[in-house]
């Protein structure tokens, strides 16, 4: 399966996950020895300006497969979403765009050396990572917005059944310049610079085909490796763990039901192996939140802030028992996690996969920090997934502290299965005249 790291290790840059974890183990041994978990630096007098060292630059996720990377792939520390308008003027241009993106992503996620050029020409690459790039856990996930299925490219009849233009929910204050797009790129990697390098490479290779419409970068805080037990979920900028209730991504059958499009006979056949992507830019009013009593913060979410445990549990991954608390005495009926997933029989089919990052953009005119959540979720059915969940959440107490300001709905293309395939091929073939 494409979403698992490659076990055959065809390239020195491609490490499988186990080997990667073993590598961390070795680094863990270094913790005891060196105290920092990283190889000691040579005492060459350049400790101040020497580049920071990472042990995970060689980590690579194979690009080819039935599904694209960046959905079931473990979420790394840095991510961004770039929404674009497609400038291609015809189907040939659109195909060139999709083939170029495919080629570049295959190269960038595997790593390699850029060619040298005659210095009279602009260089082949931005060079911000040097002439040879390491994959650094990079994934680039390509998805299409509803607007691409207009009259321009003859795709209207092949639009995924639930794909639509995002409309505002009651608490939204959508800013038009941060909404929608013909195509989204979700770019994730171990470090922020690797995502930016990938973006600049993709822009450099698609002149006249793609125009950036909006972009949001994000991060999640890293934690030290654990010897046993599940890794805790990353915290959002409200200080709470996010994504605890995600479905089990190791359960392939469950993923085929909840995340990958394909089981619905009403969907166009080309969508098989894709997924609906929802992106929302959700502003957090962090100063106000930090002035809110802890007990109220916990009641708003329905979890303990320190441990992430549900209010009736001990540990993060304990399952709340709402049946034993029908009146909401322990977990308020309007707590975020209770509304989002009431854990009632039958609700299983509405579950979504959260894979968010946190963003920090600068300062508002009132001196408050512009911080929030780069909310990203995947699901097999947009209506049953995010739209149902968000409609249940409308009016929740958390709304006092947050406000969605942008984003869009997209359909993540099925994967490119091998080097002769390209992202979007099935869509273009299904609509060929």
């Amino acid at each position, binding site marked *: 399966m494409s979403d698992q790291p490659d076990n055959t290790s*065809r*390239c*020195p840059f491609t490490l499988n996950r186990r080997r990667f974890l073993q590598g961390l183990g070795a680094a863990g041994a270094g913790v005891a020895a060196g105290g920092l978990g990283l190889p000691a630096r040579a005492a060459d007098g350049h400790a101040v300006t020497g580049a920071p060292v990472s042990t995970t630059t060689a980590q690579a996720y194979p690009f080819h497969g039935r599904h694209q990377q960046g959905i079931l792939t473990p979420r790394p520390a840095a991510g961004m979403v770039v929404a674009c*308008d497609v*400038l*291609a*003027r015809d189907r040939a241009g659109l195909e060139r765009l999709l083939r*170029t993106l495919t*080629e*570049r992503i*295959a*190269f960038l996620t*595997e790593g*390699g*050396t850029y*060619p040298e*050029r*005659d210095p*009279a*020409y*602009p260089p*082949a690459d931005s060079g911000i990572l040097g002439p040879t790039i390491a994959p650094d856990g990079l994934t680039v996930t390509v998805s299409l917005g509803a607007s691409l299925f207009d009259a321009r490219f003859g795709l209207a009849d092949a639009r995924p059944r639930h794909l639509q233009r995002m409309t505002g929910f009651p608490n939204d204050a959508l800013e038009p310049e941060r909404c929608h797009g013909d195509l989204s790129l979700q770019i994730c990697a171990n470090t922020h610079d690797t995502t930016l390098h990938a973006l600049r490479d993709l822009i*450099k*290779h698609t*002149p*006249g*085909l793609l*125009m950036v419409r909006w972009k949001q970068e994000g991060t999640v805080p890293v934690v030290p490796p654990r010897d046993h037990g599940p890794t805790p979920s990353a915290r959002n900028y409200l200080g709470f763990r996010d994504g605890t209730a995600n479905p089990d991504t190791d359960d392939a059958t469950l993923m085929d039901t909840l995340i990958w499009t394909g089981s619905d006979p009403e969907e166009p056949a080309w969508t098989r192996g894709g997924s609906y992507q929802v992106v929302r830019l959700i502003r957090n009013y962090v100063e106000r939140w930090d002035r809110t009593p802890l007990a109220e913060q916990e009641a708003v979410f329905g979890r303990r802030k320190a441990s992430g445990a549900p209010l009736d549990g001990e540990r993060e991954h304990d399952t709340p028992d709402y049946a034993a608390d029908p009146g909401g005495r322990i977990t308020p009926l309007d707590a975020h996690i209770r509304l989002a997933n009431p854990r009632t029989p039958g609700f299983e089919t509405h579950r979504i996969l959260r894979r968010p990052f946190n963003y920090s953009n600068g300062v508002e005119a009132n001196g408050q920090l512009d911080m929030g959540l780069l909310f990203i979720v995947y699901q097999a059915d947009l209506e049953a997934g995010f739209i149902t969940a968000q409609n249940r959440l409308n009016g929740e107490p958390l709304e006092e502290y947050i406000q969605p300001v942008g984003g869009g709905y997209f359909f993540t293309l099925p994967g490119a299965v091998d*080097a002769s395939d390209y992202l979007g091929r099935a869509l273009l073939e299904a609509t060929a005249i």
Partner: protein
Amino acid sequence: MSPRSLLIAAAAFGLMALQAPARADVDPEALVEPVADYKLYVLDNLDAFVSHTRDFTRAIKAGDLERAQSLYAPTRVYYERIEPVAELFADLDASIDAREDDYEKGVDDPDFTGFHRLEYGLFKQRTTDGLAPYARRLMSDVDDLESRVQGLTFPPARVVGGAAALMEEVAATKVSGEEDRYSHTDLWDFQGNVDGSQKIFALFKPLIAEEDPAFVERVEDNFAAVEATLAHYRLAADDPEAGFVSYEKVSDADRRALVGPVTVLAEDLSTLRGKLGL
């Protein structure tokens, strides 16, 4: 790297290799004529720029708001065409063509002068009151520019690089409509930049046409695409002097339609120096 990854890398770079073939064998002497022709083009435009600026600034000093407004865009066109050369004189470029964003205090900054200061007065405040000193300063700066360019030896790399530089100007400030934010005459400047870039390309084209016909064809196609979109917005199809509609009237779809060929031109023309061995 495995053979497979080498193949992928090779495929990925195939495109770039096509875009950047080995340097053409251009005899440095062959550059003399197009560079000299370009200097003539610049001097012709400067000549027209000086006389248009004279009319424009006279109208301001005479307090004729309507006439000053109507002469603003047609005067700037000449400057926009020759910007790569004009920008060689950074002090004059700042006092002639800087925008309020270039100053911390914006429109109130005492150093903010030139066309865009006058634009603010004429189109935002809608008066010529208080503009006479700016008009006098602009006229003397433009005269100064002309005399400096007369004596200038044109560096070939700068001339050839100007084709791309003009398209970078368009991509950075014209498409967004921020250049002429009060007069909304961006399309005039847009056309000026495109004219200037196209002129440079036309002068040096004979030196690469044989080596790289596909490149020449692509550049010409994209210039044609830009011209076709601009033509939509001309006030009179058969009279270039009539100019353009307000940039506010350009649809989002057409703004995007302009970004495509403009970006490809910027990317392609950035290889022109390499192709000529400069």
